[in-house]
């Protein structure tokens, strides 16, 4: 994975396609005024935030989470329980969900992030499975397989209003994450990913910053989950399940790891591919059945052949001569002391 240390580059770095993309999204209700298409884009917006939250931790800081659905699910269930049992307003529940996700993140991040090696990946996977099992074991609270139903909507009104609300949500979250990567903190996280030991030697308290990245990631993951619960009005075990964790990874890999914009692009590309194309082509069943398969074949192929993703490919094109010499050869063994 290539690491660029150029500082002070603003959002304009991806050039015109990014602005064109935002313009298309803003104009979407005019371009495609059908409720189904808008619904697909609303869900894509939520997934975009979720995938970006995975990217800040795993793509940007290099700390692999294999159970990211945990945060999404905790956010969704917290919002659902608050909404149905207490009746607190949805906007409050969004942040309550994110806050709970941060607490859970603290619980799993503190022991693991001190350790090197694959512990974090394994433990995140295990935590998500614990939560998944608990969602069934504590069915009197969580509603078991059916989940929590009848959660209040965040935005009432037409699908257009809901669409714009989700667009604002997505843009606000991803801009916040993007700004973060452009800050001094972003540079520190990048340094941790590039060389943990060197960052430590340079005086960075790597454990603290890893934990910080973990909590930021949990926050946005929980936020996305809570938003999801308040949009679809349900919170079910699927929001905690392993395929959702894999989906975040796929979206990010397709778009480009460690770019924040990549996961957003990936979320849209995959939603267009799996939710719109089959409907247009009348092949709904085939693609709903093979979705997980195709997602994961994509992960394998991208890791093997195009680890930089769409954004990385575009950046490479923009700066061909300079970058090609910088690009790390993925087949080359990493330097080991």
């Amino acid at each position, binding site marked *: 994975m290539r690491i660029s240390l150029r500082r002070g580059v603003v959002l304009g770095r991806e050039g015109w396609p990014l602005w064109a993309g935002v313009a298309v999204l803003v104009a979407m209700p005019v371009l495609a005024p059908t409720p189904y298409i808008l619904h697909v884009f609303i869900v894509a917006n939520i997934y975009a935030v979720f995938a970006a939250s995975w990217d800040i931790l795993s793509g940007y800081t*290099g700390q692999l989470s294999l159970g990211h659905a945990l945060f999404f699910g905790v956010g969704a269930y917290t919002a659902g329980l608050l909404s149905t049992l207490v009746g607190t307003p949805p906007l409050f529940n969004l942040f309550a969900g994110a806050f709970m996700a941060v607490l859970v993140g603290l619980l799993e991040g503190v022991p693991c992030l001190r*350790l090197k090696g*694959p512990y974090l990946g394994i433990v995140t996977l*295990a935590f998500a499975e614990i939560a998944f099992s608990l969602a069934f*074991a504590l069915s009197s609270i969580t509603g078991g397989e059916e989940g929590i139903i009848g959660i209040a909507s965040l935005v009432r009104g037409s699908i257009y209003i809901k669409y714009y609300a989700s667009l604002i949500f997505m843009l606000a979250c991803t801009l916040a994450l993007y700004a973060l990567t452009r800050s001094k903190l972003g540079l520190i996280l990048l340094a941790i990913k590039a060389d943990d030991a060197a960052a430590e030697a340079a005086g960075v308290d790597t454990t603290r910053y890893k934990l910080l990245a973990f909590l930021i990631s949990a926050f946005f993951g929980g936020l996305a989950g809570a938003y999801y619960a308040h949009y679809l009005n349900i919170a079910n075990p699927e929001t905690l399940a392993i395929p959702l964790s894999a989906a975040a990874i796929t979206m990010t890999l397709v778009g480009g790891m460690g770019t924040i914009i990549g996961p957003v692009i990936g979320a849209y590309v995959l939603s267009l591919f799996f939710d719109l194309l089959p409907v247009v082509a009348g092949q709904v069943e085939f693609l709903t059945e093979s979705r997980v398969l195709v997602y994961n074949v994509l992960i394998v192929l991208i890791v093997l052949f195009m680890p930089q993703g769409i954004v990385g490919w575009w950046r490479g094109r923009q700066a061909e001569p300079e970058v090609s010499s910088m690009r790390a050869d993925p087949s080359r*063994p990493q330097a*080991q002391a």
Partner: protein
Amino acid sequence: MTASLFFGLLVSGVLIGGLYALAAIGLSLIMGVMRVVNVAHGALYMLGAFFVYTVTVQWGLPFPIAMVVAVAAVFAVGVVVERLIVRPVRHEEVNVLIITFAAAFVLEELAKFIWNPRYKNIPPYIEGNVSVGALQVDQQRLVAFLVAVVLIGILFALIRHTRTGKAIRMVAQDEEAALLLGIHVERLHMLTFGLGAALAAAAAALLGPLYLVYPAMGWNPLLRSFAIVILGGMGSLEGTIVAGLLMGVIEVMTGYFISDRMTTVATFAVLVLIIFLRPTGLFGHPVEER
């Protein structure tokens, strides 16, 4: 609570624990020799169970044949997985985790297409109980345990006393030195990975009649195996065995004293606790930075 009840629980815990150890030892072997974490281990276990299902239920052949077929077939799948997707990214830990995670799903989805997502049963291969002292033990569990012990014994003999085993140990200790000595490291990696997969399949076959068979069945054994490997100390095969037995006892006790539904939660809780308290495991040594 009487002593005989406690003893009974202990015995059934150890019996199931032997199979947990067998399921985990392949993962441990791959970690120790190749220094990669194979997240697809559970999916390979699942494939083993499906092959046994096909041979026993669909073809109507006896169980021992089914087990041999399953072990051989999953060995082959393991070799292919190593060659095609693990080897190219082997030096990047994060990529190995991601790609084997994805491979697990690919295998799981393929199983859905080849068989189908419905729950299946493998018929018991031996029925009846046998008395051990005052204790009634399910004969099948006893046989499964004994077969697991024999298989683990064979693995140890292979690693300790054959030339290939020596070479595998060499690769585990120092890959570059092994290369310099003319050992075909990549071929041994393929062999090790295949062997690890085959051991998972053997455990799945022996445990087959005890659990339902379905495409997503591999995730729990995977996480349990992780828990066992970490509990025993990464890279220590002996530690894996002790931790496997211990895990069996813990699960049986949890199931009896708390609730059947909490056994998985207990497994994962052990995993989290051990990482909290002693990440090097019971028998592990702090790994040097390499």
